[in-house]
């Protein structure tokens, strides 16, 4: 195991985060806070409770998931795309670094940043709304698992993308709609029966539902299924990455 390499990649990536503190941390926190102000504190006061939870508190897990997915994908895809774009990736590929070490370094840094942001937003939310966390350990574990999953996904997008447009297209066109329609702002029980069934094909539903359970003990789908779905997603990401490194797809001609 080339631990020095993992540490080098990880700290290099984290240094980027801390050097650009404003755009890395402050702006996502600010954006999410605005959601709380608008939907939680302002409109939320006019809304009825959802599943027995005040609306402002109800949307917290969904908003954190929304942030976590976006940040994980963009951090990880940017992290691997930039050295590809500038040409400096040659050094990582020519170094005695295994694919696993490379992934741990890049994805680990991206996921760490997302988790820090998720926790910051959680703390910030306290300024606007009251909430409880019934299962804090599960909450943290699920936060980390989701950050890792979507950082892996972002890492693959970064390898696949050969332009900045492609880097944006999957987060914008697929992940964002799935998150909005995955129960961030509503319980899927509020939908007509047909739409409830259709919604179950949206993988983000399981993430938000499982995460919300860790806060309030209620969920749209069972927590077990949420965990299984996350596990399946993790397995799929690892399989695709294994294929990428075995074939050298977009990395080694």
């Amino acid at each position, binding site marked *: 195991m080339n631990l020095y390499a993992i540490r080098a*990649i990880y700290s*290099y990536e984290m240094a*980027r985060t801390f*050097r650009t503190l404003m755009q890395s941390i402050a702006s996502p926190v600010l954006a999410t806070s605005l959601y709380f102000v608008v939907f939680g504190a302002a409109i939320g006061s006019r809304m009825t409770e959802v599943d027995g939870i005040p609306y402002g508190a109800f949307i917290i897990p969904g908003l954190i998931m929304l942030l976590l997915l976006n940040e994980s994908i963009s951090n990880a895809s940017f992290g691997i795309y930039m050295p590809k774009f500038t040409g*400096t990736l*040659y050094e990582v590929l020519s*170094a*005695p670094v295994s694919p696993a070490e490379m992934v741990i370094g890049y994805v680990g840094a991206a996921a760490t940043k997302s988790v820090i942001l998720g926790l910051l937003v959680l703390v910030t939310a306290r300024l606007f709304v009251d909430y409880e966390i019934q299962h804090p350990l599960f909450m943290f574990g699920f936060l980390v698992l989701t950050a890792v999953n979507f950082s892996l996904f972002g890492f693959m997008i970064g390898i696949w993308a050969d332009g900045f447009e492609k880097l944006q297209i999957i987060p914008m066109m697929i992940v964002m709609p799935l998150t909005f329609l995955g129960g961030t702002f509503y319980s899927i029980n509020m939908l007509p029966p047909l739409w409830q069934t259709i919604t179950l094909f949206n993988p983000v539903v399981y993430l938000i539902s499982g995460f919300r359970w860790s806060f309030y003990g209620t969920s749209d789908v069972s927590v077990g299924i949420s965990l299984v779905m996350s596990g399946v997603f993790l397995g799929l990401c690892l399989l695709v990455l294994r294929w990428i490194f075995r074939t050298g797809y977009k990395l080694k001609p």
Partner: protein
Amino acid sequence: MSSTPAIQLTDLSKTYDSGFRALKGVNLTIQRGEIFALLGPNGAGKTTLISIVCGLAQASSGVVLVDGHDNVREYRAARGRIGLVPQELATDLFETVLATVNLSRGLFGKPRDKALVEQVLRDLSLWDKRHEISNNLSGGMKRRLMIAKALSHEPDILFLDEPTAGVDVSLRQNMWAMVRRLRERGVTIILTTHYIEEAEEMADRIGVINQGEIILVDDKQALMDRLGRKQLTLTLQRPLAQLPEGLKGFDLSLKDSGQTLVYSFDHQQEKTGIAELLKALVWEGIEFRDLHSSQSSLEEIFVDLVQGDDGRDPAHSSQPTRAAGGSR
């Protein structure tokens, strides 16, 4: 141990997805501690060869041994020995010089070493720039930064792919002085360059690659001795319209509207034919006012080899002497 070559390539082939065959069964051995220059025209396969050895591209078939280690199965041992300075300038957009050099060292599994990194940066006149964003450096500095990155992990084998492209004369000389110092420390150096005079000045051995095949590998001196042709140039008193019949047996060409007569000969032959030529000139009544002889440079040898291998160069077929030899 010392008999293990630094690099050994066996039947190395590479066909890209497009169907282009960049390497066709290359066999090459590079000994430890030597400076090996790989020459070849654009698209000959130089960069593909370096990319495969360094793990940046996958070979279609064949074996690469780096210090006896297979570069696929034992990639850690193989890659850990190699420092690479690629042809393209590639620098991080937002990172400082020091941060990128530290990253390089870490990637190659080495613990941080402030003193060594400082020494490398000082050697390359980059120490004062250590806190600069690497992308803001000038082209020459970026080139030096890439060398610093490669040297920061103390490689045994250094690949320099066109290291002096776009670098000014004084910097180029500094670079070659550094290469010599590295060689004194026992580092094996493999370089590609378009400046053939550099290969002529620097290299111990020279390999010529063309169309994906190594067409020649030899000691530089032996290569020049073996292939170096000499020319005797005579400036005539009166121009000749064409060569007289009596001179047809000699490898001669007329230049400068018949004012100059160029005789090409192999200086290693016992009989160079110069005495016979001079007698024949007297016999034909051709007078000359000046004569001098010159030896072909490595560049001429190289052009000659590549064109000979190509077989399509019109200049070559139209010259009575070998192409490069007759052109000067």
